[in-house]
């Protein structure tokens, strides 16, 4: 059997293999799965593959695979490209605490790959060049483990939320984020525009890719899916208000003409709002800004994950879909929700409530008597004239109507607006004809209901819009991200 032993690789790899073997903490191993780890700097794809497989193998030797490793393991199975990595990932997966039914998708994808590229691999040596096993054998083994699980309805606890790869950042968190204004971007027609100008004034769906990517399930598929995203936006009438962009990881090679050809070949709509971009200079800044998960060898990408971002109207990341396969509908929903809550969303909601104050403005002597008895006659300094109070009330009512009309754009709930309008009319009638005060109470109740409904609704299909969230950080934060920032394995 033809074998390559660890000793036959370059010094850096030998050192890496030895260091990984000596690591005991799962956290340290997990940190090594981040593509940005210095160990991968200036290493070609083949080397990065061997290194990552060795780290995964080390993780699989633990009693149980940590949940934080799941996104990496599932990524290798969902977007398979190397037989050795697929075999290793399959082993890793069956060391997880329980066989979750959702693993079947990734394993099916891996099975298709393994059938076509069932190479001999040696799982005992660094690099895996040898025999003894194969991706097909390992994927089959993991499928058998999965089948051993109880039926889906009675089996497993839910997977941790970060496994989905979906994160959101609320308005406050985005405000704290660093701005990226000056990086010059060039589109497929050679037109140049700074980042700040390109992404200002509208939400944008951004994907990263490079034309030389050889994994058909990564860049090519991502750009095809971006084309589908464009269709979905058009169908929902959002094509003018939500832009799309695909940015290359490989700006030195992906010149404008190559971008144009790449986009055309994948049915991508390309115009002012939908562009393929490169950053001829300053790609490193982009990389830092988006915390892109990639490693490079000279100008060529040696490893990257799937990365999709939804940017707000100031070009700040509001949501991301990383590593795992993403659904075009989810990304569109995310962007639509962002658009709905765009800009003065907070102010709009505040205005909805302000309108409710209108019925509370005292309009008759009895009202004044009631207020005075509540606050105490001694606290009463000056009583405004009835006409001034009516003007104030009218102002609040009109403000309420205006804000509700504004919210209507976001919610599309016409009946909520009608309810609000009815409430305002009821209060106005009460003034004009002085019927029993019941009409005022009914009007106030209608306005209250309309306002509450309006602020509670952002988008029917999302669990909550970005601006609904009151936390000050990513809603779903992958623990590995935290580990990465402290990962300090020195090699």
């Amino acid at each position, binding site marked *: 059997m033809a074998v390559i032993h660890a000793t036959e690789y370059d010094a850096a790899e030998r050192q890496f293999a030895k260091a990984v073997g000596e690591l005991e903490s799962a956290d340290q191993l997990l940190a090594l799965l981040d593509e940005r780890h210095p160990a991968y700097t200036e290493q*070609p794809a*083949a080397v990065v593959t061997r290194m990552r497989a060795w780290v995964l193998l080390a993780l699989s030797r633990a009693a149980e695979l940590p949940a934080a490793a799941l996104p990496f393991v599932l990524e290798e199975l969902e977007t398979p490209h190397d037989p050795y990595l697929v075999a290793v990932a399959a082993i890793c997966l069956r060391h997880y605490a329980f066989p979750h039914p959702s693993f079947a998708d990734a394993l099916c994808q891996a099975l298709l790959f393994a059938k076509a590229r069932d190479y001999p691999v040696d799982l005992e040596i660094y690099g895996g060049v040898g*025999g003894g096993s194969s991706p097909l054998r390992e994927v089959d083994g993991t499928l058998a483990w999965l089948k051993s699980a109880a039926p889906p309805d009675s089996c497993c606890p839910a997977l941790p939320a970060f496994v989905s790869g979906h994160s959101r950042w609320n308005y406050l968190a985005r405000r704290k984020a660093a701005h990226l204004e000056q990086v010059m971007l060039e589109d497929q027609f050679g037109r140049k525009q700074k980042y700040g100008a390109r992404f200002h004034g509208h939400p944008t769906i951004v994907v990263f890719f490079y034309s030389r990517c*050889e994994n058909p399930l990564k860049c090519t598929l991502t750009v095809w899916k971006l084309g589908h995203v464009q269709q979905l936006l058009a169908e929902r009438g959002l094509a003018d208000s939500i832009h799309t962009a695909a940015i290359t990881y490989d700006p030195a090679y992906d010149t404008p003409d190559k971008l144009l050809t790449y986009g055309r070949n994948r049915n991508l709509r390309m115009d002012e709002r939908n562009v393929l971009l490169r950053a001829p200079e300053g790609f490193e800044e982009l990389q830092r800004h988006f915390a892109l998960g990639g490693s490079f060898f*000279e100008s*060529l990408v040696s490893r990257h994950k799937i990365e999709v971002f939804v940017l707000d109207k100031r070009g700040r990341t509001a949501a991301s879909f990383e590593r795992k396969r993403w659904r075009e509908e989810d990304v569109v929903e995310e962007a639509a929700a962002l658009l709905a809550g765009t800009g003065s969303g907070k102010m709009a909601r505040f205005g909805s409530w302000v309108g409710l104050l209108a019925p509370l403005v005292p309009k008759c002597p009895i009202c004044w008597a009631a207020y005075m008895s509540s606050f105490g006659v001694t606290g009463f300094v000056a009583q405004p004239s009835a006409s001034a109070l009516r003007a104030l009330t009218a102002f609040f009512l009109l403000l309420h109507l205006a804000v509700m009309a504004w919210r209507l754009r976001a919610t599309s709930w016409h009946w909520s607006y009608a309810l609000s309008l009815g409430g305002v009319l009821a209060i106005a009638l009460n003034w004009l004809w002085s019927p029993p005060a019941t009409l005022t109470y009914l009007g106030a109740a209608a306005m209250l209901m309309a306002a509450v409904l309006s602020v509670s609704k952002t988008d029917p299909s999302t669990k909550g819009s970005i601006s609904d969230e009151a936390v000050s950080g990513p809603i779903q934060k992958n623990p590995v991200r935290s580990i990465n920032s402290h990962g300090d394995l020195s090699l």
Partner: protein
Amino acid sequence: MKKSKAIKKAARKAAPAPDPVAKLDVAEGVEGMKQAIGIMTDPAAALAQRKAALNALQGASFGHPNFKEIRGEYVAGLRQVVDDAPQELLQDALEILSQEQDPYAEKKLVDGLRDDKKALVKPEDALHYLSYNLHAGVQGVVRNVFEQSKDDRVRQQAVRLMSSDPQAVKLIERTLKDKKESAEVRQTSAAALHALNPQALQKWAEKTALDKNENQEILAACLTAINQFGDEKTISKNTAFRKRISQMSKNAPPRLKQIAKGLSTKYGI
């Protein structure tokens, strides 16, 4: 009569291809393919037999429904051939493995380029095989081979690989401008520069077309590049170039004259 012969011929063509391993003295199906792997890797077997086994297996890898059952053994067998077979067979095995981006074959090829003593095949062949995998990480090695080798076939193959290496742009431009380089290497450099920086190639081509002492092959390459990819606005403003093309379309060796006439028509010169 003619028709019926044609139909018979077409029918023969349409008939299912015979089992590739059937030509060897082996069983049918998976068992036969396993026997073929045995022959391919057997150092005691005749070279013709081993080569026939390899060819049969390669054919089966494309269309045999049960090939997946022995794919692993086939790859392991090819790796074994790389280690111990005569050059003729080894070369075939290396090419197949390289097309599959096999890490074993790539490691052997790169080791050979770094150290002559470890080379299994000629450097130009090694470069050719490595060109199947863009991510093999050989850019640095390739640039090194190009600068050190004096063999034009090797240098040409190296430039071909450099056409996907943005860091080699300056080296390619330097080679393109160097009249001491062979015409073949310079032509390959022109193609490489077009892949990496089409504007730079156009600028060079427009400038070189004016050089009356330039090699005819290179001039032809320049004019062809401008004809295929030239920018109409730039050409319309370049009076010297237009004048030169006008001269060449009247008075130049036949091939250049023909290309110049094509350019005159395209750009209204």
